[in-house]
């Protein structure tokens, strides 16, 4: 009976979602059709024209300004695709680090979460984040990216509802796609931390809340022209905006859900619950490393050669250093080089360098990676001790190092790089003679985002808990969520050595 209700509430929630979606095209057909057309007529004509004019190489080609827009757009879109691809990475890492009996459930979560984000961020998320508005939230061009826009015009020349990104000349839909994949990443982070016990439907709904209420609002503060940006808070590619947001939401979820059955012995000692496939986990980590080459260098949102090249190298160096130091620290602390720690170390380095990637030298990126790698090992052990059962170490990777990386700007940012990246006003890092000012600003940002995200996700999780419920029954948890939630089995052809 109870179960029956749950099932239904699930379906109803789903159906409403569907209704909402089906509705939109209907009423929005026109304005939506208009908006893009508007910018089409401005941009396209020029472009299509070129497509004709450059037919004969002799003839006059496009203007160099147009070519710059073309190069910028290619770069932003390809980088965005790489970030999208990180969804595969997260899916593999997280399912690989959980048990085989919950594999289908985790894969489903990681798969559908990007679909949910895509729809949610398109519906209203983008508008809240980048629509011109007040210090706290966007207010114009809210729904379905239907606001006015005259890209490729930039800076003063830009007239439209999404002025916060007027510093790049790429088309509106390129801006949207690139920002969307970031939103998707933040939502995915939660999936791993709450794995092996959360209800599918509740996770789906929480992800939707992430995409329409949590991520975009903080996003407006940090990147959308909000108060933090005004204060000079810097977060180049999202250590705070993407990773710590995901991390905070995950942490709250973990605490409210409580640990998995069997994670803590009666004496409260944490027992290991090994993941079912280290191959999956490793594949995933490689894919994430690869995707990060879009994540950080792409955040220039323009094809500035020297910038993206150096950012690519700082990103890679931090990942490499993180991998090495986490492996070594695990080796020293735990006696053997645990592959899970090696992988987490790589991700830790990547998360930590995300905010400062454009502001620091390569040697410093190595240092940041080394610290991040050590940090994540300690973090995993710590969260385990304090009974935060996070099967994949998402909190240690994304939260801890998200915060650390954001602060690194205040420590290591070099003046010339701050200027190059378009923040001439910003103070250099503590170790580069800038004093503690920037560090304080960074701290403010970290705290502000933390407070907002914790409060909102707390509310969201609690509401879900009281309505649909967020945790599956002990029987289902023991038998595995694959059968319980999906009626599937991830590997039906193999004999399992696991409790059912």
């Amino acid at each position, binding site marked *: 009976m109870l179960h029956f209700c749950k099932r239904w509430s699930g379906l109803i929630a789903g159906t409403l979602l569907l209704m909402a979606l089906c509705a939109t095209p209907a009423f929005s057909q026109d304005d939506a059709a208009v908006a893009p057309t508007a910018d089409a007529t401005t941009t396209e004509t020029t472009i299509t024209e070129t497509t004709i004019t450059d037919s004969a190489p002799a003839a006059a080609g496009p203007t160099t300004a147009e070519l710059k827009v073309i190069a910028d757009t290619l770069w932003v879109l390809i980088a965005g695709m790489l970030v999208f691809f990180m969804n595969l990475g997260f899916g593999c890492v997280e399912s690989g680090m959980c048990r085989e009996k919950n594999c289908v459930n985790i894969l489903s979560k990681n798969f559908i979460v990007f679909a949910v984000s895509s729809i949610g961020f398109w519906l209203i998320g983008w508008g809240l984040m980048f629509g011109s508005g007040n210090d706290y939230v966007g207010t114009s061009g809210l729904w379905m990216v239907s606001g006015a826009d005259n890209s490729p015009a930039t800076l003063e020349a830009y007239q439209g509802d999404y002025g916060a990104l007027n510093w790049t000349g790429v088309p509106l839909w390129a801006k949207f796609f690139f920002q969307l994949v970031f939103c998707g990443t933040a939502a995915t982070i939660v999936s791993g931390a709450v794995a092996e016990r959360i209800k599918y439907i509740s996770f789906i709904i929480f992800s939707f809340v992430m995409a329409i209420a949590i991520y975009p609002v903080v996003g407006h503060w940090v990147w959308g022209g909000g108060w933090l940006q005004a204060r000079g808070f810097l977060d180049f590619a999202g250590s705070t905006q993407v990773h710590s947001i995901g991390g905070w939401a995950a942490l709250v979820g973990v605490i409210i859900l409580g640990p998995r059955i069997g994670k803590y012995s009666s004496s409260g000692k944490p027992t290991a619950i090994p993941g079912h496939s280290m191959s999956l986990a490793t594949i995933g980590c490689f894919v994430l490393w690869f995707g990060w080459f879009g994540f950080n260098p792409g955040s220039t949102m323009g094809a500035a050669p020297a910038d993206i090249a150096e950012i690519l190298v700082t990103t890679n160096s931090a990942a490499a250093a993180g991998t090495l130091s986490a492996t070594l620290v695990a080796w020293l602390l735990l006696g053997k080089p645990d592959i899970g720690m090696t992988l987490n170390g790589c991700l830790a380095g990547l998360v930590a360098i995300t905010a400062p990637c454009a502001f620091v030298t390569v040697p410093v990126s190595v240092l940041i990676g080394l610290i991040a790698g050590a940090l994540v090992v300690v973090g995993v052990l710590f969260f385990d001790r304090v009974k935060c059962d996070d099967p994949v170490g998402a909190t240690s990777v994304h939260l801890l190092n998200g915060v650390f990386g954001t602060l690194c700007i205040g420590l290591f940012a070099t003046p010339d790089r701050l200027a190059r990246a378009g923040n001439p006003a910003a103070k250099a890092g503590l170790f580069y003679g800038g004093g503690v000012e920037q560090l304080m600003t960074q701290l403010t940002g970290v705290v502000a985002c933390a407070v907002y995200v914790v409060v909102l996700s707390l509310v969201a999780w609690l509401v879900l808990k009281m309505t649909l419920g967020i945790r599956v029954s002990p029987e289902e948890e023991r038998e595995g969520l694959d059968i319980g939630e999906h*009626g599937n089995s991830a590997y039906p052809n193999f004999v*399992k*050595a696991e*409790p059912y």
Partner: protein
Amino acid sequence: MKKIEALIRHFKLDDAKEALSRCGVHGMTVTEVRGFGRQKGHTEKYRGAEYTVDFVPKIKIEVVVSDGELTAAIDAITQSARTGQVGDGKIFVSELTSVVRIRTGETGDSAI
């Protein structure tokens, strides 16, 4: 000497193991099996088509004990593995004509 075969639920394995060692059983062998009895399998859907999982995964534990230890061992298993729900499993006892410890070649009770 007797061989006890018990078919129990996976998550009861640890309890059974502890219960047995408490009554002085030195060793056991565990096998992954699937079966049915009162507790039948269930039907699942895959891509819309139904299929029946006739057999429920179970754990088979085999314990060889001297005749003296038999009842104690059986009780240990019965208590530790019981949930009261259909599917708790069965215990089968059979006679062994001889036991050998490969390492030493010992036979009989001392080999158990």
